[in-house]
Structure formats: structure tokens, C-alpha cells
């Protein structure tokens, strides 16, 4: 029985490609993920959205595999495939029957070096990318979240959206993208994760076959900008035709590698419920649990219809966010007062042992839920390899257990203070 705790084998090829193998024989499946240490924070003004657009272009055909075959091969084998881009990373994956391992490895090795960037495909994809952006812009939550991040970050590139600004998407050129691709898609800037029904010796041999000859390159320097300390509350307002009022609050948060990350993770679990450390919340959502202080302060007295919060593991200091959907007719001041009173209460008095135990139980249960299936397991290994040392993943349960009630109080007082927050309101205007 693996019980979700696979023995992970780490190996680095001569060209610097880090390989993580997790043999799991419960099902005849394999999940292959190739992670690149490049995300929207590695872009600059004029090319915001380049990482995400590169991801799209890397499904449009390589020297050895046509655009069609890139999609068809995996689906024909009954597999699923996709990719995503966020602030720190870009990733591609295939989950399919274990005998399809070679297909996935071949695709990922081609993707690392041989994508075509055909000028016509590039232009055709421009409108697809803009369509993706505009689909998101239909959603008030996306627009508000973007405004709040932009206001919270004055210097650091975490402040612009992963999809990019529209004018950059309208004007970027094919060579801008190709340069971005060539600069970052290096074996020594990537991690390949293979989890599932594999023989690790044989899998490594196949990986060497497909990736061994790829030349390493010079890794671009990472982002050096540090966001200056915020010295006072910031406010932004979005006024648009709409039906519902939304609140977004963001506090500057620690990076995953910072020493108080786990303390704030537990503090968030105390405040609104434990969500684990999966970017996708393991599919279980981020809504406040019913006995949590935020639910009791906001939902129970019928100020808001729902409240959620998120502390996401990132490479550099990002944001701790709280979002609420306000009920019709409720004053903004009433919502703010209830929310900040609940946070301040935890800064004043440490949580009870019962509240702390409850928060930890929730986090530990979520970690267990995340260990189900090769796709989730491979995702977590790779995700953490792009933001920190992946080995720390195994230590997370112990680190959660070690957080004390006093540390929770202290981190809330220090991190979630008024001067470090940005408050955003979506104010719906009458529909036309």
C-alpha cells in the first residue's frame, strides 16, 4: 500500500533536467508533467502575457509532431492532456494508460526544443488568447481581483495578470514570444515528473533517451525586485454595470519558503477553514467553513452570501486574499467592520486549543485528499519544484503540527494589519 506517500526518486540528467519519479502501481496509469520555471512574473511591460501565450503556441506543432498529432496522440490512447501558466510556472501534462509513457515523453521532449511558432499560427492564436481574456473580463470577480493585485504591487511583477494586458496582447510580435520560449525552455530550467505504474529504472532510461541530448543553456536571472513595505491601507473601486456587490481584500503574504508561511496557513485555517496547499484547492473550494470566525462574522448575520480566502504557495511573497459576495442592501462599512473585527480579535487573543486542533485537522485532511490519484500526486511534486525545494512537501504535515496558538496570534497581528491591506470594491451600476 502506498497510501498516497510514494517514494520519490530524484535524478538530474547531465543537461540539468531534474527528474522526479513516483512509482505507484494501484492503477495502470501514468501521469507525466513537465514544469518550466517561468511565469508571468518573468515578463516585462510590453510583453505581459507572453508566458501564457507561449504555452498556447507550444500546442501548435513541433518539428517532429504536427499540431494535430500533439492533441490526437494522447486522446487516441484514452488520455487527457493540458497545460497552465501562472505567476511562477508553466506546465504541461498527460495522464494516460501506463503503456503510453513513451508518447508523453516524446511530446514533452519535442515541446522543450522544437516548437514551430509558425507566423500564421501565431496570428490565429492572438485572437484565441484575447478571447480567453475577454471571457474572463465578463466576470466581475476577475476584474476586481486584477485591480486589487495591481494596487497591492507597485514594483513587483506579481501585480500584472497572467493573461497579460490587452494592449500587449494586441501588439506583441512573433519574435517576442519565440525569444521568451528560447530563453526559458531549457532542461536546466525544468522539472519532469512521472508518477504512476512505472518501473523507475526503465522510465529513467526512456527519459534519458528523449531528453538526454537536449543542450542546457544559461538560465535567465530571476526576478530581483522586492515589493517595498506597504505603509498604509490602499483602496480601489471598480464601477461597472452589474447585479452584485463584491469585496476583495489582499494582504502582503509570505512566500512558501518564508518561515512564517505555515503559521499564516494555520492562521487562515483558524479564520476561515483549512484548504491545504494545492493551487486548485484539490477541487474542494475555498469557502469559509460554517464554524469559522469569518463565516460567523459575515455569513451568519446575513451580511454576505459567501466568503472565501486563499493563501497560495508561491516562490516570492504574494497575497493573502479574502473575497465576499455581499447581500443586496448591505452597507460596505458593515461588511468591512465585521471582517476586520474578526481578524483583529485573532490578533488580540490566541486561538483556543480546540480551534487550533480543528484548523490543523482540516489542513491534514485536505493533504490526504490531495494524495488521491497519480495526476494530483504528480501535480503537487512538480508545482513545489518550481517554487521551493520539493522535498519540503513531505515535511508539511509536521510543520503544520508544530505551529502554536501564540504563533497564530502573532502572525495575524503582524501580517494582517490595516496598513498592509488593499481593499477592493466592485460596485454594480445599473444595467444598461
Amino acid at each position: 500500500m502506498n497510501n498516497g506517500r510514494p517514494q520519490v526518486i530524484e535524478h538530474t540528467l547531465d543537461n540539468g533536467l531534474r527528474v522526479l519519479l513516483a512509482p505507484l502501481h494501484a492503477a495502470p496509469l501514468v501521469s507525466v508533467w513537465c514544469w518550466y520555471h517561468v511565469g508571468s512574473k518573468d515578463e516585462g511591460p510590453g510583453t505581459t502575457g507572453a508566458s501564457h501565450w507561449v504555452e498556447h503556441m507550444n500546442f501548435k506543432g513541433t518539428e517532429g509532431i504536427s499540431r494535430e498529432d500533439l492533441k490526437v496522440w494522447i486522446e487516441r490512447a484514452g488520455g487527457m492532456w493540458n497545460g497552465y501558466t501562472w505567476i511562477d510556472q508553466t506546465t504541461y501534462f498527460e495522464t494516460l494508460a501506463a503503456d503510453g509513457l513513451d508518447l508523453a515523453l516524446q511530446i514533452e521532449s519535442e515541446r522543450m526544443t522544437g516548437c514551430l511558432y509558425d507566423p500564421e499560427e501565431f496570428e490565429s492564436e492572438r485572437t484565441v488568447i484575447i478571447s480567453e481574456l475577454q471571457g474572463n473580463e465578463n466576470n466581475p470577480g476577475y476584474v476586481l481581483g486584477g485591480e486589487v493585485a495591481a494596487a497591492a504591487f507597485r514594483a513587483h511583477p506579481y501585480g500584472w495578470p497572467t493573461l497579460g494586458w490587452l494592449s500587449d496582447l494586441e501588439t506583441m510580435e512573433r519574435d517576442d514570444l519565440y525569444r521568451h520560449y528560447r530563453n526559458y525552455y531549457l532542461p536546466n530550467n525544468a522539472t519532469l515528473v512521472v508518477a504512476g505504474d512505472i518501473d523507475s529504472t526503465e522510465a529513467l532510461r526512456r527519459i534519458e533517451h528523449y531528453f538526454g541530448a537536449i543542450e542546457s543553456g544559461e538560465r535567465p536571472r530571476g526576478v530581483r525586485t522586492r515589493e517595498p513595505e506597504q505603509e498604509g491601507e490602499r483602496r480601489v473601486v471598480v464601477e461597472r454595470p452589474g447585479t452584485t456587490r463584491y469585496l476583495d481584500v489582499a494582504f502582503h503574504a509570505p512566500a512558501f519558503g518564508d518561515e512564517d508561511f505555515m503559521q499564516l496557513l494555520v492562521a487562515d485555517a483558524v479564520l476561515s477553514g483549512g484548504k491545504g496547499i494545492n493551487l486548485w484547492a484539490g477541487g474542494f473550494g475555498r469557502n469559509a467553513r460554517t464554524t469559522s470566525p469569518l463565516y460567523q462574522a459575515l455569513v451568519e448575520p446575513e451580511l454576505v452570501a459567501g466568503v472565501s480566502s486563499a493563501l497560495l504557495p508561491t516562490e516570492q511573497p504574494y497575497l493573502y486574499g479574502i473575497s465576499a459576495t455581499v447581500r443586496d442592501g448591505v452597507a460596505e462599512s458593515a461588511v468591512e467592520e465585521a471582517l476586520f473585527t474578526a481578524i483583529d480579535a485573532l490578533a488580540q487573543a490566541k486561538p483556543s486549543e480546540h480551534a487550533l486542533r480543528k484548523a490543523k485537522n482540516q489542513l491534514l485532511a485536505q493533504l490526504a485528499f490531495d494524495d488521491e490519484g497519480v495526476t494530483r500526486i504528480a501535480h503537487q511534486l512538480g508545482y513545489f519544484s518550481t517554487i521551493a525545494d520539493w522535498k519540503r512537501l513531505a515535511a508539511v504535515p509536521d510543520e503544520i503540527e508544530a505551529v502554536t496558538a501564540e504563533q497564530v496570534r502573532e502572525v495575524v497581528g503582524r501580517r494582517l494589519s490595516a496598513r498592509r491591506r488593499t481593499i477592493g470594491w466592485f460596485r454594480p451600476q445599473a444595467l444598461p
Partner: protein
Amino acid sequence: MSAAAGERLRPERFVLANGLTVLHQENAVSSAVTINLQLAAGAAFETAATAGLAGFCAAMLKRGTGQRSKTQIGEHLDFTGSLLAGGATRHTASVGAKARAADFESMLELVGECAMMPSFPVEEVEKLRGDILTAIQEDLDDTGQMVIDRLRAAVYAAEHPYAWRLLGTEESIQRISRDQLAAFHRAHFGPGGAVLVIVGAVGEERAREAVETSLGGWLAATGSQGPDGGGLAAALPNIPDAPAPAARQTVVHTMSNKVQADVAIGHPGLRRLDDDYYAATVMNMILGSFAMGGRLGRVIREEKGMAYYVHSSLGAGVGPGPFMIRAGVHPSNVDTAVECALDEMERIRREPVTDEELSDAKSAIVRSLPRQLENNEGIAGALHSIEQYRLGLDYLDRFPDLFGGVTTEQVMEVAQRRLHPDHCVVAVAGPYPEADAAGEEGA
């Protein structure tokens, strides 16, 4: 490969003396357990005037029982880190839970309690009503939701159970009383029409014992539970046929505050138990699913670059459909995208699909089985379908042959019989028609 998947899954099925059907599958490569109780208590048992009643009722189940208050239920869930939710679809209501295996017995007890004896506290009914009304208000500003609403309302006659919204309307939700919720529960929740699925790190003996303890005492309510011994399948609602629209019809919901338009093209589709189902699934895979949107994706996304997403779905359920094509496009591309989609519907009726398309589609379906059973939720979902549609416990073993045998002729025939490009509804929600071209049609 697919045989291996079937072999891996050897669920136990047993029926309690009170008529409750139980399906259990141990999955030791998990430290968690998924519990899902499903009952014939979905939106199809509402009327247009009581739209949203089933969902309202299901969401109330964890807000107080004869034994515990909402706070006590919340405390149990929050202390163990478990998840519990009640919800309703068109045909069924469900109480679903996910917990660490160590908490299995206490969670099953809670699932049982919520299903058997919810107390519908008045103040909780009012709180939930407010939450639902807020969600309805949010939907009014959501192009994706509005386009589906408009499509359903145009595709089905007003009294057809597929015509109204699952969430209900502001009017219907305002009208629903506490007594109506309790009466809906009495009428539709009972062991005879329910199926309980348990998947996870729990052995058979332990599962049987816990089920007997927590749900063995569930008495059949006075309402209808379906014929004795019929289980969930017999208790499901009777969904009437729905004729295809007499002609192609366009409905537009203009939302000029939006940037992008959502498009839906659809008509009544087929039932899950129709003989056509397997050929239709292969046909739909080729038309709008395989390799990111099938033929539709190739033309509308890849060649014309008009949409981030485009796909089609059969919608085959207890009743007919809807078959639907969905896309999100810039308002200036709506007309072209619709034209392309209708052309593809027509083309798959007119021309045989290629051998390669056919074999790719079949292979994608048949070989995806192990992946669909990757985790507890996936296995539980498969077991529910098997029970709900009486597919038989050997269904997963027969799965490869059911789809693998579909021929080119069957695909074309089923497209001719089941796709109606000239008798469908084209719904658009968003900034369409564009302001400068709107003429009199806006508003």
C-alpha cells in the same frame, strides 16, 4: 487495458431490508472515503412554479436534523476536516461526503441523519433563501448562465421538466415555504428509492456494519418510493418526450456591459437508455469533443481563431437531452461561429466520417476508462450511473465492446436521426448585436 480496469473494480452490491441499495468498492490506495447517497428527488419533481424546490430542500439537509443543530453538524465536520454537501440535479438529490477513513462511521451516521430527519429550522430556511437569491442575482450578470437559461426555455415547452432553471427564479424561491420543503422531503426521501455508494479505504465488513447501524433503521416514508424493490431506477421521474423546434429559432439576451458573447446551439437530444446512445457518443466525440472540441474546435478555434472554447455535449439523461454546442466568442464573430457550427452539424449528417476519425474517437472513449476510475470520486460516479440506469455490474467489462463496435454507417445514421441543424435553437447572451449594428433588436 480496459479489461484490467473492469477487473480492478469489483463492487459489492447489497440491499437492506428497508430497500436501500448499497454499492461498496474498497480502494486501499487512498486514506480517504467518499460517501454518496442519491435519491430520486431532483428538479424534475418540481413544477415551473416551484422551480428550485429540490435544490433548496437538498441544501437544507445539513442545516439541522432531529438530533443536531446546524452548529453541531458544522462542528463535527469542521473538527474532522470532512466535507458534506447536499445538492440536486434534474433527476436526483444527493448527500455527498468526503472524509478520512478513520471518520467513516461518524460521517455515515451524519449522512444518514441528514437524509432521514432534517428539521428545516425556520431561521435557517430564511438564511438559505437569502443566499439562493443572491446566487440568482449573480447569474443574471453571467453570460454563460443566461445563454443556457434562454436555450432551455426555448428548446422545451414551459411545463417540460428540463425547461426551468435548477436554482429557480427570484419569484419561485420567494414563494417556497418551510412546509413545502418538509413536504418535498417526506414525499421523495426514503430508502426504497435511494442508492448509497461508498468508495475508499474501508473494507466490506466494516462498510456493511456501518450501513446497517446508520441506515438500517430508515423507515420508508409515507410518500411514493417507487415500486417495491425497484430501487433508484424505478423511482426516477418520468420525463416526457420533447419535439424538435419546428424551425431554426434565434434567441438573443443582450448584455451590453460584457466584452464577450456566449453562444449555445441546441435541441432535445436522446435518453441515456436509447439504443442510439453508444453510436451518438462516438458521433459527438468526432463532432465536438475529441482533441479539444472535435471538428468544431478544429474549425472555430484552430483555423479561424475565433474562440477560446467550443465543444458539444449530448446531454443524454433519464430524458431527452439537450444536445448542445457551446462557444465563447467576440460579438463580431458570433454570426460566423454559428454558421460554422451549423455547417459541421450538417456535414456529419451528410458525409461519412473518416476511418481515422472513427477509430480515434472509439479508442479515446474505450481507453479512457482506467483514467475515469483514477480516484474515489471517479469510481463513485461510475457506480452511480451503473445503478441509476441499471447497466449491470458487468457494465465496465462490456464497455469496450459497446463503443468499439460502432460503425461509420451507424455514426452517419445517428447524426441524421439525432442532429437537427434546421430545427434547433441558437441562443446568444452578451454584447450582441453589437451596439453600432444593433438596430431595433437591442434591449
